[in-house]
């Protein structure tokens, strides 16, 4: 069964550094998402992406964050200048159609640790 893959599985970065989290969505999917889960807390929506542009973003997704689909297969989340509070598990998800009932398929996540 096709999967969403995320790399790396764990990223350790110094505060203030830039980090790029990578995702390869399922190949025929058109809608892409990033979610964040701070340890012990609920999963939070960050951003959705369709047709090469952001469809929606949450208040968490400030100017420090950006997303890109550089080559038609990868979907990246960049955090420009990381803060301690960016430490979290980041999940990428994708789905095929625009209907709400289509489930979003999640990757295994990238654990981001900011030192």
């Amino acid at each position: 069964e096709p999967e969403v893959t995320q790399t790396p599985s764990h990223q350790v970065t110094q505060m203030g550094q830039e980090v790029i989290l990578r995702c390869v969505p399922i190949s025929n999917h058109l809608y892409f998402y990033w979610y964040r889960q701070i340890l012990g807390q609920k999963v939070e929506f960050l951003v959705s992406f369709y047709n090469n542009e952001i469809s929606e973003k949450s208040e968490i997704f400030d100017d420090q964050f950006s997303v890109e689909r550089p080559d038609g297969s990868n979907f990246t989340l960049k955090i420009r200048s990381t803060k301690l509070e960016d430490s979290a598990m980041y999940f990428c998800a994708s789905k095929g159609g625009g209907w709400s009932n289509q489930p979003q398929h999640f990757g295994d996540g990238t654990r981001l640790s900011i030192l």
Partner: protein
Amino acid sequence: AQTVTQSQPEMSVQEAETVTLSCTYDTSESNYYLFWYKQPPSRQMILVIRQEAYKQQNATENRFSVNFQKAAKSFSLKISDSQLGDTAMYFCAFIGNDYKLSFGAGTTVTVRA
């Protein structure tokens, strides 16, 4: 904005027994979809079951079933014949016309041998 509430932070169940996880949500929309996701210790997010709000029939997926009460805005998950591999955090999630998932805080389920 939609809110999803899971009032049980932790549940424990004996292997082969049944456990029911509660979830309530708040929305003004009439068409929406509800999901239960499982997050094992490895921290993947795995879809367990989904329910369309316009369907009266409760969804079932093997040992997993839901009790969907639209008027009460309730969406509980029943795990029958619990197995050790069911040990995980379970998240209830809602998606409406804004197409983004809103998650509850999660319920940790521990299956005891």
